[in-house]
């Protein structure tokens, strides 16, 4: 097991090199001169040239990339062109917002999705099941940014119950979290339902029923444990998607998280910030995936056996 974890963590290294190379290439190809964007239209040619020299923007591509990696290995991922603050600090300031948003959404998705899925499966083809499945489909099909706007329209503009922006009070956290959670609720509900349906058809459940066990014990004690294994994977994958999906949610609700930082940085051609942000999200994403795999092995001894 330990060997497996070490291997997975070591595999992060090539991922980081690959991600940084891809992002570096994309940024290199991006039209628009960062010096112009930072200094503004009024800046003199001389100032622009000086900026490009100082930031090493005139060097060949590989030299620039090599220098970035060399510094990054030493823990220096540069400073933002716009604010002149270290990129690492910019990201650390924004990250708590994104994590909080993703965690709250995940929590909502689990708390609602799993029970909905179980009830739908137990009462397959009932009215509740049909309504839930259609709701889940609508949830899957709803553009995040549209849902956010509709919620603002109804709860902030119309009813004036909840604020339409910010993320510092509990009230302000409700709308963004629900917006981001909608799709995950739908996915978790559908996964729980289908996994539950598959499990209750297995022989061991028939055995439990045959010995006369109460239906509630059959479902909650015997079926649920096995039914939740694939749900864990989906929840884990969702967490990664939530980190990404936060980009749109954060821009709708003006939350100063990593997603909005990224979008602003891309628009302003703030290369070090984009580079650092994408790397950071890739690491977070990979670590969450590793965690999910470990949880998976812990829940399912059959898989644990493979990792030896």
């Amino acid at each position, binding site marked *: 097991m330990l060997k497996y974890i070490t291997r997975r963590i070591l595999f992060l290294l090539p991922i980081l090199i690959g991600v940084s190379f891809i992002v570096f290439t994309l940024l290199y190809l991006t039209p628009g001169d960062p010096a112009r964007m930072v200094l503004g239209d009024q800046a003199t040619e001389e100032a622009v040239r000086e900026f490009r020299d100082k930031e090493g923007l005139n060097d060949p591509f590989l030299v620039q990339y090599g220098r970035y990696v060399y510094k990054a290995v030493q823990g220096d991922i540069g400073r933002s062109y716009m604010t002149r603050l270290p990129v690492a600090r910019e990201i650390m300031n924004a990250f708590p917002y994104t994590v909080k948003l993703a965690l709250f959404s995940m929590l909502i998705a689990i708390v609602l999705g799993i029970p909905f899925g179980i009830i739908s499966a137990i009462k397959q083809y009932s009215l509740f099941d049909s309504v839930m499945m259609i709701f889940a489909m609508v949830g899957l099909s709803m*553009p995040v940014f549209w849902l956010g706007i509709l919620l603002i329209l109804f709860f902030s503009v119309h009813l004036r119950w909840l604020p339409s922006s910010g993320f510092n009070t509990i009230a302000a956290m409700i709308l963004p979290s629900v917006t981001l959670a909608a799709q995950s609720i739908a996915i978790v509900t559908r996964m729980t339902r289908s996994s539950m349906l598959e499990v209750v058809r297995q022989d061991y459940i028939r055995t439990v029923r045959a010995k006369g066990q109460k239906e509630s014990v059959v479902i909650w004690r015997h079926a649920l444990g096995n039914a939740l294994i694939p749900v864990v994977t989906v929840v884990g994958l969702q967490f990664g998607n939530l980190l990404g999906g936060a980009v749109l949610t954060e821009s709708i609700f003006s939350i100063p998280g990593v997603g909005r930082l990224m979008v602003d940085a891309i628009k302003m051609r703030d290369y070090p910030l984009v580079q650092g942000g994408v790397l950071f*999200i890739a690491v977070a994403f990979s670590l969450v995936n590793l965690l999910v795999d470990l949880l998976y092995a812990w829940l399912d001894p059959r898989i644990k056996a493979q990792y030896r």
Partner: protein
Amino acid sequence: MSEQINKQPGQSMHGIGAVFARLRRSPLAMLGLAAVIALVLIAVFADYIAPYGYAAQDLMSAFEPPSANHWFGTDEFGRDLFSRIIYGSRISLQVGFIAVGIAVFAGGFLGAVSGYYGGRLDNLIMRGMDILLSIPSILLAIAIAASLGPGLFNLMIAVGISSTPNYARIVRGSVLSIRNQEFVEAAKAVGSSDLRIILKHIIPNCMAPIIVQSTLGVAIAILTAAGLSFIGLGIQPPVPEWGAMLSGGREYIRDYAYMTIFPGLAIMISILALNFLGDGLRDALDPKLKQ
């Protein structure tokens, strides 16, 4: 990690007729199919359906709420929103289908080569895909869209590339499961070339998961494209893209909410239809799952 769920055994389709017969038993899938066909027809005949041009401005009738003249109202330039949404279906369908086409072609090629030859090449390709998968796809699409610059074609490429790794994984999984079956060995024994075996024997036998994934993929592509346009990295005005229209209407949300409601509704109905169809297709193509 998702291999456990994605790995589906290669199934043959047992005839399009049989699949359609099974598809017809699901009312939601038929509803989805009907809506998708309607959407395609709207896009093709937009010139005849739309009462106004998509860029026709009429400043005298700006910000008119929905009425008999303007079914969905007008925007800040007095453009008819109904007409713009009708024309917008062209953009969304184009982006959806072409982006998925790019992803299926690139991902299918990489996945097939990877699964068929195995070994070092497989390792190299799939690790590359892992790297792409470690960036959330919307973020990858944003980065690609930013580096290519705005525009319809660039948007398609950005969305297409960002979903390529998923198709590569699915195709590789299917190829692995049929690579060693007797009919492939038989084809090798009679001296077929690798290319012929891949194209004639392996690809047709892993079509089912590809078809299902592409139907759902078109929905995801339309959503991603609308999202990119929403944050200003996709299609630029005056092209009537639904996401961009939504983003434009956002400024006037307090007084003219209909400007954001209708484009969003158009996106949602299209996605819903594709999702219903995709779900139905999955059940119809893989009868084992539905008992």
